[in-house]
């Protein structure tokens, strides 16, 4: 191929529009693809103050008018927004003389725009499924949910390859939509290690004093204070940990369970040992992660578990519950500790194991950091994605569509 490989990516969020995890995912993935020599066009929803077109580190970003009349409900808004997105993407594609090799949609939120364009331009189509309706809702309970579920199924049906960020999601999607194995591809999510490398040498002793006494080990939890994140399991494990060692539990985040958690802490007389910080800014969060003697991810349900990767990038030893995406990120006793899901005794055992054996903690911390560099590195993820594009383009070149176009 004489010119660069090019891809048009569809996403309903891209910075500064940040709603969930797709926005940073597209940001880092597109940047990394650009560095790997892929021309990327991101088509996304508009955001107040953000330009309709800009170039971000070599990535062409187009923000479309995302249907601003009142919509009857969220799903109908999504389909209406897709009408505009498809129209604008078709215009851009035609202005480029059709010279884009691949369409790539992220989640059902941009399914209809991508599917139509695939057929109109006859290009190979990729879908990344970050989450599913049946997973988010723990089942399908209404026509509204089934409509979204069927739109997701249609998206995966139309895609040449379906990308998931964990083996757990691959299995989940196989089950949810009955997809053949060879259609699915696992490419992990990444973590931006540069953000942690910055100020690595900075002395955090003074910062640490704001959160814990020098003789107290820091046990850190980061996440929404909701049931599925299992923070109550950690609070229940706290007294058992304190029987063995002196520690301070720092809980970052907010959520509907906060009052309930405070009640448990107060009634067990541990108010001086458990600190709730609420939301903190990125800088404070990274410093906390670097100070933490152990980072705990006690989730009951976790499709990926990016918070574990962040802790690993900050060189904090991690203890995770053996579930979902966390199960595959951590190799027990090698780069972290896995404990039984929803079991405070097991969690207390895992935390104590790290806090009472410095040599062990250093080993898993070092191995975990190495794993981040090798496996969850955006540079590598961009390369893997590019390879996948190239393989599919080679298959596509033998297809009826490609031959007809010549």
């Amino acid at each position, binding site marked *: 191929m004489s010119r660069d490989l090019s891809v048009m990516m569809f996403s309903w969020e891209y910075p500064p529009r940040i709603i969930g995890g797709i926005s940073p995912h597209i940001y880092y993935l597109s940047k990394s693809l650009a560095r790997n020599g892929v021309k990327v066009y991101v088509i996304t929803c508009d955001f107040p103050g953000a330009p309709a077109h800009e170039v971000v580190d070599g990535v062409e970003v187009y923000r479309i008018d995302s*249907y601003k*009349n*009142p*919509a*009857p*409900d969220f*799903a*109908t808004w999504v*389909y*209406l927004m*897709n*009408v505009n997105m*498809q*129209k604008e993407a*078709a*215009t851009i*594609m*035609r202005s480029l003389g059709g010279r884009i090799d691949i369409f790539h949609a992220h989640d059902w939120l941009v399914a*209809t725009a991508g*599917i*139509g*364009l695939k*057929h*109109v*331009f*006859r290009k190979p189509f990729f879908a990344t499924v970050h989450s599913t309706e049946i997973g988010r809702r723990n089942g399908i309970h209404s*026509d*509204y949910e*089934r*409509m979204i579920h*069927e*739109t997701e199924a*249609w998206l995966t*049906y139309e895609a040449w390859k379906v990308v998931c960020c964990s083996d757990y999601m691959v299995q989940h999607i196989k089950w949810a939509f009955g997809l053949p194995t060879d259609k699915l591809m696992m490419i992990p999510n990444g973590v931006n290690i540069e953000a942690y490398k910055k100020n690595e040498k900075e002395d955090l002793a003074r910062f640490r004093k704001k959160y814990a006494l020098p003789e107290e080990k820091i046990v850190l939890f980061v996440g929404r204070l909701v049931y599925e994140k299992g923070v109550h399991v950690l609070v229940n494990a706290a007294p058992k940990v304190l029987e063995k060692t002196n520690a301070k539990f720092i809980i970052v985040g907010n959520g509907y369970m906060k009052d309930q958690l405070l009640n448990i802490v107060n009634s067990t007389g541990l108010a001086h040992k458990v600190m709730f910080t609420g939301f903190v800014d990125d800088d404070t969060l990274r410093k906390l992660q670097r100070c933490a003697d152990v980072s705990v991810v006690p989730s009951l349900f976790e499709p990926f578990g990016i918070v574990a990767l962040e802790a690993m990038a900050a060189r904090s030893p991690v203890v995770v519950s053996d579930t979902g995406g966390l199960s595959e990120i951590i190799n027990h006793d090698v780069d972290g500790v896995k404990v039984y899901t929803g079991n405070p005794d097991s969690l207390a055992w895992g935390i104590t194991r790290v806090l009472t054996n410095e040599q062990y903690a250093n080993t898993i911390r070092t191995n975990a950091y190495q794993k981040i560099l090798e496996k969850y590195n955006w540079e590598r993820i961009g390369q893997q994605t590019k390879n996948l594009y190239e393989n599919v383009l080679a298959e596509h070149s033998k297809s009826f569509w490609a031959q*007809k*176009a010549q």
Partner: protein
Amino acid sequence: MQAIILSWEYPPRIVGQLSDYVKTLATQLVKNQTKTYVITYHDYLAGEYDEPEGVKTIRVTNPVRTHIGVLTWVLTLNQEVERAAANVYYSTDKQVDIIDVQDWHFTPAAVTLKKALGIPFIYSIESLEEHRSRGANSAFNMAIKSIEWLGMYEAERLLVKSDWMRNETIRIYKVPPEKVKIVPFQPSSMAKEVLENYRDVLEEDR
């Protein structure tokens, strides 16, 4: 001349008057040496079908089986309409001259096909949401009106069936009057008038 008509109803699926009109128009266009494709919806007769009168019919169905209303149903069906139209386009060496979209349902597809493949389209108006919903302005009605508006904005020309409808279209949607042409429903003669409009659009498009 090769034309594609997009219509959400076509015999044997009859919802209102539009079905009969489209059937008559397509048959008459064929008699007037126009290669005519009709892309329409049917729940289970999906696929291609050559009618005895020479109209090539392609029926598509909705891959999303469960819906909460006509709006979501229409917005997911449009992708299948695009797929069928693209198949006609590529299988006839890109020789599609014009698309004639009947009412609002498939105007999103017509707009994408215009932007993507450069095929001009005419929007034929059978009825308007303003009248169907008696001026209701809920988010649901507004969404349908916005789709009608998009179609009117992007179309090269609007065809209506009466003087009254022409005035209403201009009044409600502020369409430039010269964009709206009247072709009354007269089975014997209307195809010639519609064809004249097709030719005018192609002339202007060049």
